[in-house]
């Protein structure tokens, strides 16, 4: 499951938070997915829209123009981006929603497209899955630093089960990284080398790995707060311009604007969700489509073989 990294007090700087899910699919597709999801008994509703395609669209920016601002990655060449992924994975892939996978090649290609359009300044990629190091092996764009919870061939383990719920609540690597990050305040000078030491083999059972060869700066000069803090570049304003106080001339135009506004027709609240269809009160009649070419060909073959084997004389009994 792709998640965003929320910390108690640190937020990312100039950073794009990957906001998933977002709804940009065709309405009928949403309805089908929603129906399936509600029927399957899950209670989380819009997580149905977290798919590999949507994730790659958010990263590369190839989003339909109707998507609102809050569902876009509005980053530019001065943004540092943090991407945190966790879930089940394997050698070269990560699972999404138990039904799809994203491969390391697609991720590397998506990052390259981001670099081509300068959608990031620096990118920190943290992954906590089994064999997580395989996910960053294929990156080839500059200014990417990657951390993974386990090497190829190793499994990442979870931290502790909750006896009341009966499930494991958190992965080990995530737990120790969170513990480390909660001690960082916005003015801290801790650098990335300390983050690389988090969760050694004795605690995590798997060997965490990292990749810094694509990064231009030395990791010991990179502050944690570059990605996790909320530090902006500011400058003191030292100059002003001089304005002349003039009055009266523009009052009339201001009053005119006011009057024009009241003549507009009252606005209505648009229907957001087709609630009736999602709640599934009665079965929807789907349009009947004639069978396609493949089905027809298959049946033709079956009939042909049958009559070949048993003889054409049976035909008059069937038809």
């Amino acid at each position, binding site marked *: 499951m792709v998640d965003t990294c929320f910390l108690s007090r640190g937020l990312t*700087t100039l950073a794009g938070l990957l906001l998933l899910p977002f709804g940009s699919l065709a309405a009928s597709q949403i309805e089908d997915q929603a129906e399936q999801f509600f029927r399957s008994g899950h209670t989380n509703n819009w997580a149905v829209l977290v798919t590999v395609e949507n994730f*790659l*669209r958010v990263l590369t*920016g*190839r*989003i*339909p123009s109707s998507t*609102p*601002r*809050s569902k*876009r990655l509005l980053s*530019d*060449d*001065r943004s540092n981006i943090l991407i945190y992924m966790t879930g089940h994975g394997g050698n070269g892939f990560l699972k999404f929603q138990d039904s799809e996978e994203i*491969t390391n*090649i697609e991720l590397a*290609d998506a990052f*390259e497209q981001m670099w*081509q*359009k*300068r959608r990031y300044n620096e990118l920190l990629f943290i992954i906590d899955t089994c064999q997580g190091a395989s996910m960053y092996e294929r990156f080839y764009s500059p200014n990417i630093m990657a951390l993974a919870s386990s090497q190829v061939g190793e499994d990442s383990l979870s931290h502790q089960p909750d006896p009341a719920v009966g499930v494991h609540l958190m992965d080990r690597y995530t737990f120790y990284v969170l513990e480390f990050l909660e001690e960082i305040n*916005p*003015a801290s000078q801790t650098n990335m080398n300390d983050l690389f030491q988090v969760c050694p083999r004795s605690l995590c059972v798997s060997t965490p790995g990292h990749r810094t060869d694509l990064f231009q700066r030395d990791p010991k000069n990179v502050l944690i707060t570059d990605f996790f*803090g*909320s530090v*902006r*570049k*500011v*400058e*003191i*304003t*030292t100059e*002003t*311009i*001089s*304005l*002349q106080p003039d*009055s009266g001339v*523009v*009052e009339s*135009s*201001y009053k005119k604007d006011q009057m024009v506004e009241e003549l507009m027709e009252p606005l209505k609240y648009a229907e957001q969700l087709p609630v009736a269809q999602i709640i599934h009160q009665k079965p929807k009649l789907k349009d009947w489509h004639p069978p396609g*070419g*493949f089905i*027809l*060909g*298959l049946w*033709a*073959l*079956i009939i*042909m*073989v049958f*009559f*070949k*084997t*048993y*003889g*054409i*004389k049976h*035909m008059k009994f069937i038809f």
Partner: protein
Amino acid sequence: MATHSSILAWRSLWTEKPGGLQSMGSQESDTTESHHHLPLAGFLPPECRYRLVVTAAVGAPPPCGFPIGGGLRGPAPRRQERPDASMAATGAAATDLEVVRGKRAALFFATVVIVLGLPLWWKTTETYRAPLPYSQISGLNSLKLRLMVPVTVVFTQESVPLDDQEKLPFTVVHEREIPLKYKLKIKCRFQKAYRRALDHEEAALSLGNIQEAEAMLAEPSEQAEGSLTVYVISERCSLLPQDMMSYIGPKRMAVVRGITHREAFNIIGRRIIQVVQAMSLTEDVLAAALADHLPEDKWSSDKRRPLKSSLGYEITFSLLNPDPKSHDVHWDIEGAVQRYVQPFLSALSAAGNFSVDSQILYYAVLGVNPRFDSASSSYYLAAHSLPHVINPVESRLGSSAASLYPVLNFLLYVPELAHSPLYIQDKDGAPVATNAFHSPRWGGIMVYNVDPKAYNGSQLPVRVEVDMMRVMEVFLAQLRLLFGIAQPQLPPKCLFFGPKSEGIMTWELDRLLWARSVENLATATTTLTSLAQLLGKISNIVIKDDVASEVYRAVAAVQKAAEELSSGHLASAFAASQEAVTSSERAFFDPSLLHLLYFPDDQKFAIYIPLFLPMAVPILLSLFKIFLETRKSWKKPEKTD
């Protein structure tokens, strides 16, 4: 199913018996064998039937026009076969015929698959790619940009010696390459058209005051964007103070002192170039525009402060009142916007669409606690804590959900009674005069301290009327800095007053437009180049027709913009460069360019092998067998001979 059908075909090739089915009645003994009826006259061409079997194996409807259920009988009536008595005699000959026909059938099988099937499969599974002008895109990388600034130089009567005056009017061109480490070569060309002054200009320039002269010289028709006019006055003219050699005015006009010297034109020409460069194009203007395309070492990251070029901007003014119980703050924002901001924005309107809105936020605190300074008994925010102020506030600010333009936030913070007065300190610990700071590409924050006299005797909450002029002076200055409109590098001994009431001078707008045009062209070129590279590298991406048409439009717009820049029409060049950027971004970020992104090659093989392998094996084996037999038959004649 596919295997079964192909095995049927296989058996039919090699186990045919002549005669066979004559009518339905005599079929009883043969129905358990899978014999085909082979008309000896070849009425039913064998290839049709076998093509039927093959294509039925892959699920497509038969191309030969046979009815689907009864493909084994031809439309033609069947011939009567000879009685069985002669069958044994013709057996041997028939077998040979069979074999030959079988071989021909197998070869035809293979031909149909290779000639018809393979291209069909290839064509139907390839991604649709509309043609793109790759050669033109790579040609854009070696585009030579020539930025022409048309300058009109007007000479008054005593500014130059008489014999030089006789030479007027003529044109001088001064061209210079801008030394930037960028792949596009940029040349800056000043085309100076020298002419004599007209009567009304002479009259205006003989007035005593430079402001009056300017007012008189203001032409009824607006000067075109990008062009400048320089007036040359005589050495002893009192229009300028005696020690000043030049003057730069706010409306694309400058005044330069002339000289009575043999080399008058050269000397004056150099002065003019200095003045004109200050008003139009210098290296740092272009370096700031191309900041993210240049290698970082030469121009520092400070140059990356200006806003990126965009079609429009959204400006939001917010009043933060963390302590409404003590301060009842009123600000006449609508009036202030009308009076001060709108003239500025309408002067900038050539650079984009602007929309302005405002809001008041209550109980919104800055994220940093101010410290108390007992020496001045006031509170202060140290310079190193300023970077942490913005983020906690930003989540409360909000922005328009519909617009995709970049947002500029200007915050006015009225500190709480417990923390009043609040000053911002710079790095040396001195309070900042404006009490404001700004963040590049985001906006600015100003702290407005309530006048302590307002507290005398009144009950809380105290009514506070914000002095909008003071506030807008700071905000407009910050807006100028955010746009990258910096102070020009003035030549020595130059008189310069600064912007008038609009807050911006027209040639500053021109500088912005030059910078933006170059930036847009650089961005469009990079986008198109990287799109071409991307499409070459990832062969799975579909290129639809509308994406292709946007690319063509973008390429045409880049070329048009370059032409207009070299002919000095700044406004149309800027419009063309905007169009180039819009089209190239639309093509690059088209949602359809993501389709089919995740089909690695090994998965493709896994899909195709179960479909094609069962069909391919019999064909290849039969071809191999034919080849072996043919080779044997070639060798046999050699042996017997």
